[in-house]
């Protein structure tokens, strides 16, 4: 069963909302088990393996990341960070019955204590339609200033 463009767009908005509201268990459930969340270090990077990336996380790493955020001895999350995504209407670059590729521009704000920073980014989602339901097969997040020096980026842009 194919999905509509509107369903795709709603899905992407809902995903951003889950991250902003810290609904990480629901967010993890969106993913296919062999998915990867990739955040390149270099502008227009093509290879996640033989050069360094900021993130290239499998489901084990994503689960670890989520569980760590709520740990009793997660010192860098005392107090906790908060984040906020402002997203532009996604481009749907590819759409078949079981695969959708989208590109979405976002502004991402993360804050903790008196610090706050803004990242401009483009998220490319590779979505799969499994039993009529959209799932995240892979996600690539390109930060506009990926080659700049950052302090801690603790949540998920």
């Amino acid at each position: 069963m194919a999905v509509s463009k509107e369903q795709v767009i709603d899905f992407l908005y809902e995903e951003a909302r889950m991250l902003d509201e810290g609904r990480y268990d629901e967010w993890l459930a969106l993913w296919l088990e062999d998915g990867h969340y990739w955040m390149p270090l270099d502008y227009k990077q093509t290879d996640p393996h033989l050069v360094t990336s900021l993130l290239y996380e499998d489901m084990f790493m994503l689960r670890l990341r989520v569980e760590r955020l709520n740990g009793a001895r997660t010192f860098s999350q005392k107090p906790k960070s908060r984040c906020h995504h402002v997203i532009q209407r996604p481009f749907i670059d590819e759409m078949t019955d079981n695969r959708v590729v989208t590109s979405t521009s976002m502004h991402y704000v993360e804050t903790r204590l008196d610090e706050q920073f803004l990242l401009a980014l483009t998220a490319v989602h590779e979505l799969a339609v499994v039993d009529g339901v959209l799932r995240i097969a892979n996600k690539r997040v390109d930060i506009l200033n990926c080659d700049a020096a950052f302090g801690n980026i603790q949540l998920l842009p």
Partner: protein
Amino acid sequence: MRTVSDITALFTGPQVHRDVYTSPEIYRLEMEHLFANAWVFVGHESQTSKKGDYFTTQIGDQPVIQVRHSDGEIYVLFNRCPHKGTKIAIDRDGNTGKFFRCPYHAWSFKTNGCLLAIPLKKGYEETGFSESESAKGMTPVGAVKNYRGFVFARLAPDGIEFDEFFGDSLSSIDNMVDRSPEGRLEIAGPPLRYMHKCNWKMLVENQTDTCHPMVAHESSAGTAVKIWKEMGNPEPRPPAMEIIAPFMSPYEFFEKMGIRTWPNGHGHTGVHHSIHSDYSAVPGYFEALCEAHGEERAREILDENRHNTVYFPNIMIKGPIQQLRNFIPLGPDKTLVESYIYRLVGAPDQLLSRTAMYNRMINAPTSMVGHDDLEMYERAQEGLMSNGMEWVNIQRLRTGEEDFSEETVENGTTERQMRNQFDAWVKFMTVSMEEA
């Protein structure tokens, strides 16, 4: 104005005064003395592999260019036009061809820094220009050494020689390079760049601080072990388990791994074993190394599992991981950490893939392990402002006066390497200072 005795008084042996981390005046003196007198890492030769290739960085607070000259040698020049001071190179790297040309007034220089041409040169006739400092061109640093691909420089024209400064500590670079079947490393992509609001020395000290991983990193390493157990201990282990879980090793593991110190502030953890000892074998690698060196030598190379080697003042390398971290001071409370990785030329890609994974999992601004380290440093930088106590304790396993001119191997939880760094710190701070 601080004198030699003022600087010497900041390090008593068991304690170091907080001013070394917080004082803008001490920081300025570090830039003027310590970073001028010591041999400081610049870059890897593969970052400038062809003639005219250059890359820009800094030694302490001094902007410099590493460049491959037409004679094939690597030069390190101050990145400043001798005319008005404009930085000659502003890109992080590139190829300048046969000469540098200042973008402001088109003064040009050979890639060894010598002045090549000035437009409308007759304007300098009979001005005495040829006798001026500017006529010499771009200033080279005091001394440069390319050791097995790693380029180091001493800013001061005179001072300790390279071999004396590093001595037997070069065995850690040797081991990293020997791991390549061709005896050669190549840089693999740009470095991670991670900004820390703390003093650079906190980062250097943490490299041989073996009593913090199981505490500060419990949230990542401990949680990884917990999740893996909940999954029913699946094999092969997820990559995160191989890389992150060893941080949760017990104190006894770190005590037994040993710490070696060398003169002039260098030292390493992981004398007998380390958190890198139990990585799974990469198919084809051992065979390639045996073919290059013979089996006995190949085993000898791979049996070294040195964890972190600190090259005083401000880098750390990991031989088994082919990683180098450069702790670049930007202010008394600001440090840029650049984490580079290298390809072992002639080794399978899978090895480099693990190296890249280690770099992002442990040393990225997005790393769960990095997050807790940075939190500790920044809390320390703020806590040190407290007037309740002025001294920092580095006394662990110090049972009497220590002679840092000797190489020693001790219990892996000693803070001797931190004391060794401060001994060298005093030495290279004061060697060019007025007595009183």
